[in-house]
Each structure stands twice: as structure tokens, then as C-alpha cells.
């Protein structure tokens, strides 16, 4: 391992020491996107949800859930990968991915935050979020899938944040002198009560947390409460049924791996971390991407075959509509393109390149976002009770809704840009291991 001999602590301190002009360009661009989102949201607050393309299904024509909910699911899906990957690293010793583990954890925090934001943005009366939800919680938590969602996402957020806070103490304690002085109070806070004797205990705690996350995330979050929002409603044939659990999970993992690849590729490029986040890491991640895409597409196939062969009238109509819609094929096409690349580079390794993996990841993220929005919208457009002349209606998001997508992406970009200036985004453990490997 020729490259790893050059690895040093200085490498992971680089983001905190060097700030390029491009960094400010990125921040500025992201700020513009966030500002547009903010303006859009203020307009929405003033006029109400009428400024969206949403409507009432039934005699009204249209859909009552659209881009906001689709994007919400998409972000929760991306949030998945991060922490699952990181937990897997710790739990089953996937040490190869240790250099991207913290980036993945941060992606989880960022993505979950904007997913939570979407819940607020989607509400007709956001002013009541506390006064209405909290008093009813003890009762509604038994009955409402939406409350299950909020509960599990909160739990997931707390677990991930705890996980990150615990693992970061080791790094900060050992690098404190090298970290920027102006954040000293923050480091002091992060290190409250720290002693080297706790390392072993923390390691065990984090292991258990990782175990909990590995169990909770797939079974309860994206394989559970998120699909149950839809899969438990018999009135919408495009949604109802047991397949949505596994289907949502595969889509989530697909987009999550895509998100990790993009984040890692950007950091590697910007900070010259080719020797830390090696090609090997990307090759591995690309294979995982391919596996999850394969599962995603396979479960789509199940639904299509079931929906066209001898399906009930309502389900047949929903499937037919899905298969005849360009958005669906755009989404599936993008995902299949990525799958084609993964196969090709598996057969002929020379086809692999970071840029191509990056492109495949972007394709997958665009594809999954389209698929998620399409899933929500199509489900509502094709209800079982299709007697209404206005059903299926139509839906096209307004700029106000679209601004939320670029706005939330920008929020996550800014989040990474700022966090990288404060804490090491690559674990010291990863560096230490690379150093040991090199010696």
C-alpha cells in the first residue's frame, strides 16, 4: 500500500486549515438556493398551500400529496445509507469503508434534518405543530402511521446524533491542539468529562448503538413506518400491499449509497484524499449500489407482472397508468443505466472510474427522487373509487415546490461545508489503521 504511507493527521485537518475560493462560490450558490426556498416558503405561508400544484382528489381532480411528500421520503431514504453503512463498519468489521463512515453519519444527520423540515413545509397549519401533535401523541401513536413516522424518525435522529457525539470525542481529544481555536468552547462541550479510560466503554456503547441502528433502520424506518404510510391504505391500489416495505427499503438503500458516493467523491477531490478514500472504497460502494438497484428493479418487476396479468380492475388501471407515464420510465431508465454501468465495470474493471461512479450515483438519485414523487402522485391519481370524471386528475409541481428540492439540497451542502470546518470528517481511527497498514 504505497499510498497509505503518506497518510497523516494533517490530511484530515486540511479542511479546517485551507479554505479555497471555490468553497465560497459553493457557499454563495447554496445560499442563493436556500434563499429562493425561503422566499417560496414565505409566499406559501402568506397564501397557503394553494400556491402549490396540489388539489383535492375526488370530485376536485388532482392530488393532495405530491412533491413535498415524495421528497420527504427521498431524504429519509438517503439518511438511511449513511448510518447503516457506518454501523455496518463497526458491527461486522467492514473496515474498508471506515474512511467514509463519518461522512456517511453526517449525511444521515443532514438528510434527516431536511426530511423533518419537509414535514413542516407540507403542513397547512405549521403553527400548530407543537400545540396539536404533542397533546394528542399518547393516543395517536397507537393509530396514526404519520405519528409512527415522526416518532421513529425522531428516535433515529437521536440515535445517530448520539452515535456521532460519542465517536467524535476520541478524535477531538487527540487533535484538540490542531483544531481551530475559535471553536474551543464547542470542543470543550464535546469533551465534557472525557478521559482516555472511557474509550473502551464508548467503543462498546457505540457497538450496541450500531446494532440497534442496523436492526431499527431497515425493519422499522424505511422497511416499516415510511412505506406503511401508503401500504396500509386499501383505497389506493398503487400503494396497498406488503411489497411496499421491501420496495421502499431497496430504493432507500440505492439512493443512500448514491449519496455516500457523491459526498465522498467531492471531499476526496477537494481535499486531495485519494490515498485515504481510495479507489477501492469507491469500487466497493459501486458494487453495493448495483446490488440495491438490482433489488429495486426486481421488486418493480414483481409489481408490474402482478398488475398486468390478472389484476383486479383498480390495480390494473393503476399499473397501466404507471407503465404509460414518461416520468416512470425516466426514473427506471436512469436507474437501469446505473445498473448497466455497475455490471460492465464488474465484468471489465477498466471501465470503472470515480467519475463514472459519480455519474451513476447522480442518475440513481435523480431516478429515485422521480420515482418517489411519482409513486405518491400516481397512487392518489388512481384510487379504487374511480367513478369521478375528475379522477385521474393531473398534477405538476409549481416553482414553489421545486424550490424546496434545490433548497434542501443546498441546506445539506452548507451543512457539510460548515461541519467540515469544525470537526474532522474522517475518523482518526481510519487514519491510524491506514498508517498501520502502511508500516
Amino acid at each position, binding site marked *: 500500500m504505497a499510498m497509505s504511507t503518506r497518510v497523516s493527521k494533517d490530511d484530515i485537518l486540511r479542511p479546517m486549515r485551507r479554505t479555497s475560493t471555490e468553497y465560497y462560490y459553493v457557499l454563495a450558490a447554496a445560499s442563493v438556493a436556500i434563499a429562493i426556498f425561503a422566499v417560496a416558503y414565505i409566499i406559501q405561508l402568506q*397564501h*397557503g*398551500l*394553494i*400556491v402549490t400544484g396540489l*388539489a*383535492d*382528489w*375526488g*370530485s*376536485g*381532480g*388532482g392530488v*393532495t*400529496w405530491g412533491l413535498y411528500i415524495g421528497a420527504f421520503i427521498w431524504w429519509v431514504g438517503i439518511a438511511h445509507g449513511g448510518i447503516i453503512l457506518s454501523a455496518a463498519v463497526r458491527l461486522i468489521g467492514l473496515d474498508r469503508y471506515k474512511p467514509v463512515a463519518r461522512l456517511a453519519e453526517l449525511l444521515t444527520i443532514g438528510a434527516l434534518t431536511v426530511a423533518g423540515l419537509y414535514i413542516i413545509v*407540507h*403542513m*397547512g*397549519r*405549521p403553527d*400548530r*405543530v407543537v400545540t*396539536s*401533535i404533542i397533546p*394528542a401523541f399518547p*393516543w*395517536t401513536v397507537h*393509530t*396514526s*402511521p*404519520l*405519528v409512527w413516522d*415522526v416518532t421513529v424518525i425522531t428516535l433515529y435522529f437521536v440515535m445517530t446524533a448520539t452515535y456521532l457525539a460519542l465517536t467524535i470525542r476520541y478524535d477531538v481529544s487527540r487533535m484538540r491542539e490542531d483544531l481551530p481555536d475559535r471553536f474551543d468552547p464547542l470542543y470543550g462541550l464535546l469533551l465534557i468529562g472525557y478521559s482516555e479510560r472511557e474509550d473502551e466503554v464508548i467503543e462498546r456503547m457505540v457497538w450496541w448503538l450500531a446494532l440497534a441502528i442496523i436492526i431499527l433502520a431497515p425493519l422499522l424506518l424505511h422497511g416499516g413506518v415510511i412505506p406503511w*404510510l401508503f401500504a396500509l*391504505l*386499501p*383505497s*389506493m391500489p398503487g400503494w396497498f400491499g406488503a411489497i411496499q416495505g421491501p420496495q421502499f427499503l431497496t430504493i432507500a438503500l440505492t439512493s443512500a449509497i448514491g449519496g455516500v458516493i457523491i459526498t465522498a467523491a467531492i471531499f476526496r477531490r477537494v481535499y486531495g484524499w485519494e490515498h485515504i478514500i481510495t479507489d477501492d472504497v469507491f469500487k466497493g460502494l459501486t458494487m453495493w449500489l448495483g446490488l440495491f438497484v438490482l433489488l429495486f428493479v426486481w421488486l418493480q418487476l414483481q409489481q408490474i407482472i402482478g398488475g398486468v396479468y390478472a389484476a383486479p*380492475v*383498480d390495480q390494473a388501471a393503476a399499473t397501466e397508468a404507471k407503465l404509460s407515464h414518461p416520468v416512470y420510465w425516466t426514473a427506471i431508465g436512469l436507474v437501469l443505466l446505473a445498473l448497466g454501468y455497475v455490471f460492465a465495470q464488474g465484468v471489465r474493471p477498466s471501465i470503472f472510474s470515480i467519475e463514472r461512479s459519480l455519474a451513476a450515483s447522480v442518475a440513481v438519485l435523480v431516478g429515485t427522487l422521480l420515482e418517489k414523487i411519482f409513486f405518491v402522485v400516481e397512487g*392518489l391519481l388512481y*384510487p*379504487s*373509487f374511480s*367513478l*369521478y*370524471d*375528475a*379522477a385521474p*386528475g*393531473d398534477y405538476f409541481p409549481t416553482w414553489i415546490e421545486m424550490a424546496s428540492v434545490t433548497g434542501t439540497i443546498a441546506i445539506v451542502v452548507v451543512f457539510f461545508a460548515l461541519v467540515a470546518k469544525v470537526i474532522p470528517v474522517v475518523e482518526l481511527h481510519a487514519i491510524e489503521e491506514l498508517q498501520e497498514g502502511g508500516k
Partner: protein
Amino acid sequence: MSADLPLQYDFSEDEERMRGILDETEYDTELGVALAKDAQKLIAGELSEAEFAARHHEAIIEEFETDERPLEALADGDLEEVDDDTDRKGLKDALSGFDPDDEQSRREVLKKSGAVAGVLSLGAWGTAESMAGGDDEEESGVAAADEDEEGRQMGMVIDLERCDGCIGCVDACREENNWSSGANWMYVLAYEDEGRDDEDFLIRPCQHCTNAPCDKVCPVNARHTREEDGLVLTDYDICIGCRYCQVACPYGVNYFQWGDPGEGMEAMSDEHRYDDRGRHVDGVPLKGTMGKCTFCPTRQDDPETRGSVACMEACDAMGMGAIHFGDLNDPESRPNQYLEERRAEVRTNGPHTDEDGVSPHSSTEEDDISTFKLLEDKGTDPNVIYIGNEPGPNAQQVDGPVSYEGRVGADRRKDVLDEGADAEANGNHESTTGVTRGDGHEH
């Protein structure tokens, strides 16, 4: 009346079937048949209570180890002394209280009867009853007693055969509740279906389901079922506008309040908007909350106006009488009475009863009249019962005789919404200008 039947019932005709039933019990078939025959004689007055008691006492003791028939002679003790001249007071009491029309007395006897009487002699009786179609006594008499404890369940019987699609009900609903243009809480669909030449109508209020999906999924309990009368309502002061109720409802009856209700709400008094629990559940919703047909809850609070709804009044005023609202748990209520009338009507004039002049055995009365509940297979337990044709899976809505445009606002809410926020402000009751339709729906 089926109630007279036990006396007229010729046991011998059905003895074979009876034996079959008795054979399935662990008890002596012959004894059962003998007991049943004698019970018939007892009731017909051919046999005295004492004789009846004496006749089978030993056999019963042998078979069941105890004789628990509800007969005074048994309690008197010495059966040997019983003869025809014995004071018949006990029997008279038993028989005078034995008016077969009176469910109470029969239930009394049933209750007092032990295993023997229940399984054997009265078992034969029960069979005779059900043969004669006496089941409705179970439904009306016994059920009514139980339902008094259940409280009210408001609902509708809607006779689609009487609807002519005038949408007067929709108009009246809007007049009453001031909902925004296109938020058709009450909606009448004209539709065509395969195999039927004429267009049919479906009147679609909220179904006020007993097992309401919207109620279940609400994250804040704003959508709830009012305990006193089963109305499914939205508390506009709690609703957060997540719209999950609309997503979960199989009927598409929910309409979000996208814009400010403005004058529409100001025009309504507090008494009209807040029900007797002090919750804001009636009339047009607040901006950003969900609305739908309410079954006029503040009318139901007042015993004077209870059982009235705006749509029904309008329908009656038009002379149509298609909508019948009331307490479905009360057999005397308007919807139940109407259902009874229509059934009676069909029994008299309908095709089933006088077909070939023979009615082999009329099964259930429900068969005589075509009723249905909308999407009953979704398990929502709706409280609207329809009389008439049920739309099939391929039915398609068509233009009705009266347009929604202008009079009640708009048919398609999305057209109004697409006009944008400014359109919403004047999308209230008076103004319907600027509403355009994108399809061939104009009249």
C-alpha cells in the same frame, strides 16, 4: 304474522328435519320429538301443564339427571297427585304470559328454561320461527333494546331511484355551510354503466363510517367520531392540515381549505360553528384545515332540529324525497321507516312475491329491494345506505342534467385552485367568475 305460527305449525311436516337437528345433539332424539309434540299440545291447550310435566318427568330425569322445565307443577313436588282438575293457575299464568307476539315473554321463558327445554322443546319452536321468516323479530325487537344502550348513530338512507340529478342538495349544503367554490361537500354524480341504458345518479355525502380510515390516521385527533351520535367531524381548531385524512378516505369526500374562508365564515354564527362540546366542527373550515360533509352537527345538538340536514330539506322541498337522514339505531327513525316502506312496497308490487303466484319460501326481506353501501369491501362500515343501482367498477361519470358552474360554484376544485391564490379569495360563495373548465364538461 309469523308470531301466530307456532300454534298453526304442523310439526309432522317437518319432523324429519327436526329429527336431524336432534340427532346432532348428545341427547335422546325420541324424547326430544315427544317433548316437542307435547309442548305444542300444551300451548294449544290440549294438554295441561301438570300432565305435560308428569308425562316425561322420569324420562327427563333419566336422560338429564334433572328436570328444569319452567313449570309450576314440577316445583309443587308430588307429580303422582296431578290430574286434570288440578288448579290451572300456574298454567294460565304461563300461557297468558305466553303471548307469542310479545318478545319479552318469550325471552323470559327462554331464560327460565334449562338445557332440556331450550335444546329440545323450544328448539323445535325456534326452528318453526325461522322457517316462517320470523327473524325480523330478532332484528327489530331484541336489537332495538340493545341499541338503546349504544346511543345514536346518525346516517342516511338515500333512494337513488328518486334522484333526478337536480343538485338542489349540493346547493343547499353550500348555502348552509358556505364552503368555497368547488369544495362540493355534497356531490351528485351522474354516471353511465355497462349494461344500463339510462344514466344513473350517485348522491355522495361523507359516509360517516363507523370504522372511518380518516379518523384512524389523523395524527392529532382533529378528525374524530363524535361519541353521542357517530358523526365523523374535524376540529378546525386542532387540524394541522397534513391532509392524511383525505389520502386515507376511499370515497374522496374531503376538501382542503386552501384559502381564507373570509366572509363565508364570518357569515356564520358561533352557535352554528361550535357544537355542544364547544368544538369548532361545523361550517366552512379555517384556512389550512380539512373540511367535508358534517351531517350538520349543530342541528343534531338541538332536539328540535335533530334529524334534519340541509340537503334533505332541499331534496324534500323539491318533492324528490331521495335523502332520508336520521338515527339508524332507532327503528322509528325516518331512514329506517323509509327503508321499511320501500320494502313493503316492493313486497306488494315488486317482482319477487307474485312471480308465478308462488313464493317458495321468501328468504330475507333484503332480497326484495336492492340496497348497497358504497365500497363496503373496504371495511369502513359506512352509515349511508343506498337504494338502487350500485355503480360497477367500470362506471364513468357523465354530465348531469344541471351544471355545477355558476349555481353551486364549480365541479372541479382544481380549476378554481389553478386560478391561484387570488382566485381563492373570491372563490367564495358569490363569485364564481373566471372559473374555466379544461374538458368537455360545459353544458
